[in-house]
């Protein structure tokens, strides 16, 4: 399949996904009891106030009109107004997005940097002690409830040892660095604000560890099984018969080929980070999308939930596209034929 073909398929999928997500959330939002107008007007508002609100929100119009209006606005980047914060959903999301991405990237880096060597080690030492150890670690990672691990880490590193902060992105008495990327670590580096950098890093460690631990398991397991499969390919035997060193065989011939199928897996794992992020952000009060959506759900703030799901699924589809392209780039068979 060609690059163009992949892109086309993903973009068509994106249309369907956005359509599907918007319909589903829209239906859900109208299935629930609870009148958004009343929620926005406040607990003790009078009926007139609520009616006025309903009209302002267009909630008095027929459902399909409401949906069409919503989709029309959506296409113009207008996600509506949050019931809870009464601010444009898009503004909110843009504000929280970088935090989540920063956390996810940090977690993924942790998982990859540690997971690939562990996976390779485990495959090379299959069925020996180190393999059992690594597999135990990876299975534990996969099996650990993130919310619980987060709590334990807070208890230990913040509560007992007091060496790392347990919530937020930055020490409370610090101002965030000027916005460039939205990543505090990167931005403070750019601004040369070392204190902020230190604080941002310190705040990042525990949540990234929590989130990364699960994915460490995923990555390790994936690399291990891909390596095991690759290591028994005929070309590995050829390499051995040519006297190539073990390191060269494992890293150049083995890992190179094991990484190709792993890209997809790891890419999809990155998509799953969102799921983990919801819980991790809740536990660490990390001001990101996950946190935002949990609060929105608690308040049944459907404009916000819909906005989030649309953005998240779009991001997911685009991420998949990126993964596909990377995959094609890594696999010469696909790259060269195009």
């Amino acid at each position: 399949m060609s690059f163009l073909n992949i892109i086309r398929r993903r973009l068509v999928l994106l249309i369907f996904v956005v359509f599907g997500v918007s319909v589903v959330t829209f239906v859900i939002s109208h299935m629930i009891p609870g009148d958004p107008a009343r929620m926005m007007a406040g607990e003790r508002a009078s009926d007139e106030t609520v009616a006025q609100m309903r009209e302002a929100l267009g909630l008095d119009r027929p459902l399909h009109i409401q949906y069409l209006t919503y989709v029309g606005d959506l296409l113009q980047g207008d996600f509506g107004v949050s019931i809870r914060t009464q601010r444009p959903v898009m503004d909110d999301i843009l504000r929280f997005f970088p935090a989540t991405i920063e956390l996810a990237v940090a977690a993924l880096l942790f998982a990859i940097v540690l997971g690939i060597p562990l996976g390779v080690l485990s495959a090379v030492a299959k069925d020996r002690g180190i393999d059992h150890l690594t597999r135990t670690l990876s299975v534990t990672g996969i099996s650990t409830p993130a919310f619980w691990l987060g709590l334990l880490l807070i208890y230990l590193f913040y509560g007992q040892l007091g060496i790392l902060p347990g919530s937020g992105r930055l020490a409370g008495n610090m101002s965030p660095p000027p916005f460039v990327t939205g990543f505090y670590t990167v931005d403070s580096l750019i601004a040369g604000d070392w204190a902020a950098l230190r604080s941002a890093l310190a705040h990042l460690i525990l949540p990234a560890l929590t989130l990364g631990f699960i994915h460490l398991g995923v990555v390790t397991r994936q690399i291990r099984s891909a390596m095991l499969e690759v290591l028994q390919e005929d070309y590995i035997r050829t390499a051995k018969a040519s006297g190539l060193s073990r390191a060269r065989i494992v890293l150049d011939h083995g890992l190179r080929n094991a990484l190709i199928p792993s890209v997809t897996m790891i890419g999809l794992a990155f998509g799953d980070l969102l799921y983990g992020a919801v819980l991790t952000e809740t536990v660490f009060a990390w001001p990101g999308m996950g946190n935002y959506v949990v609060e929105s759900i608690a308040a049944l703030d459907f404009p916000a939930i819909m906005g989030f799901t649309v953005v998240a699924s779009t991001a997911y589809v685009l991420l998949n596209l990126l993964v596909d392209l990377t995959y094609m780039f890594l696999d010469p068979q696909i790259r060269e034929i195009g």
Partner: protein
Amino acid sequence: MSAVVEVRDLSLEFPTYRGPVHALSNVTLSVGAGEIVGLVGESGCGKSVTSMSVIRLLPPASNRITEGTIRLIGRDMLATGERELQDMRGKLVSMVFQEPMNALNPTIRIGRQITQVIHRHERVSRAEAEARAERLLAEMQVPDAKRVMKNYPFELSGGMRQRVLLAMAFSCNPKVLIADEPTTALDVTVQAQVLTLLREKAKERGTSVLFITHDLAVVAQLCDRVYVMYAGKIVEQGRTADVLRRPLHPYTQALLRSLPELGQPKQPLASIAGTVPDLIHPPGGCLFRPRCAFAHDRCVEVPPLLSGGGEEVQHAAACWLLADGHRDSADTGRSDLPSNEATTLPAKPAKQTLLTLEGIGMRFPVGANWRGRPRGYVHALNGVELEVQRGETLGIVGESGCGKSTLGQIVMGLLRPTDGRVLFDGTDLGNLPGSEMRRMRRRFQIVFQDPQASLNPRMTAWRVITEPLAVAGGRTTSWLKGKARELALQVGLRPDQLERYPHEFSGGQRQRIAIARALALEPELLVLDEPTSALDVSVQAQILNLLLRLQRELDLTYLFISHNVSVIRHVADRVAVMYLGQVVELGPTAEVLNHPGHPYTRALLASVPSLDQSAELAAPVRGVELPSAIRLPTGCFFRERCPFAAAGCDQPQPLRGAEADRHLVRCHRTGELPPA
């Protein structure tokens, strides 16, 4: 002659969950300097294990060497450390494997894969290494070596890859080359080229070669000396000519006699009954004893290698017969050949066409462009016209990818041709309604190549055999079981084994099950798609015999597909030679194979290695790649590779013949060709 490879008394076992597999027992062999030594034997007899052990390539944890020594160029390989072994591999001894498709790393460019080996063993600059790699490729007759250096393996054909692997193997001028069935996966025409190349280069450089194969003819063409293995033991050894001409061991004798090239066409072959012993519980004494026609009391003891006497140097076999003087040559003793009663062929009934293929074309879409439309088509079949007469065997022969299986599937109605019609007994299968098609289907059945894959692993044998009957419904289990027993007996299976699952049978038995299933509906036509190519020659002989007998007894019509010319020669009444989805030659078997009219048929026949050592192996096609079936050549499809190409070949060729529809050839120069 000082031996560069010396294996002495090597015994090796693999621990498995069912107990240790005694893969090698007391194997002793040697390869002298500059010598090409063959190691032959049927599947699973331990050839690969032996070869891998020589350079200690088996993962240490998976096996245990229980006794013996291995010396390579004077070095004790069992006492050598892993580092040193690595230094030796690729430099002193290199290895070429069977599957060229997978033996190269798919993600590294060819050039780097070769230079990597050079760099590993020699301190040379990058430029030097690259220059050398390119020279090597050129030497291995890789056209356009410079470009190939930058290619990835998938961009090369199988033959090219095997050349690249040879280049890699020769890159550091090793003393010894171990080649483990390097040509088994290749087409005969390519095999001929690669073998010629291998022999030349080895002789040129004085490299010793340990050549592993299951094909006795290849040994005949290539090797100075040969070792015959059976069930992990060397059973016979000697100069190639001696062993092939005067085999000493009953196994070697039987093996040779089960080759179809040595049998009379359509006559039963002397197969070896039974199967290879289970190496977990090997029979005591001589391992061949249970299948041996000459077995006697002494055979419960392990026989040593005994000289065959006479003037033949080093010709020896592990058989008590030699010691006891029961016999001294293959010509004496009981003959396994059946009596001549079967040789009288039944008179052919009047010609009656059972199957007609009219202008069959088949295209498969490949790839997809950005709109999801195919980017091109594989032209698997291009206007095939054939008729099959009731009661005959029509053989279809051709190299891999020429469309044989596709044709078989179209006949079976498993694929719908893009062009043309299939008429069975006068009925067009293309526009039959579902129910009638279902009824029609019972009249023709198919047997596939891979007996393992053709049986559902989760059904017992009797269920497999009676599945066609059960599908029709309305039969009791006991009736079905009874039927299964009948069919089993018919194909030579023990009825008491019918409760077993397919994986509990040997390959030959599985193929018998598949045949029994095909017979269940009492069909008139059987399509046999390479029914024996996954089997060992001894088992192949059993199956061929069975098929011939069934045809006689049940008056069956066969469409017999094979890439093996000898098999076709043995079973077919008429033969169609296919090339790139076309029938290029068609006629009575003997006529086509003895007086081929098409340059391609000639090339094909010339490439088939012969047991007759004097028949020099030739590589008669030009070293041009097989054209792609996606972009078909214009004119005659064989034009670019044809040594006789001339003006006029750029026009499409029709099938034509002197005597109408007896011997047809798709070549306008047939008459002008020099005698073969």
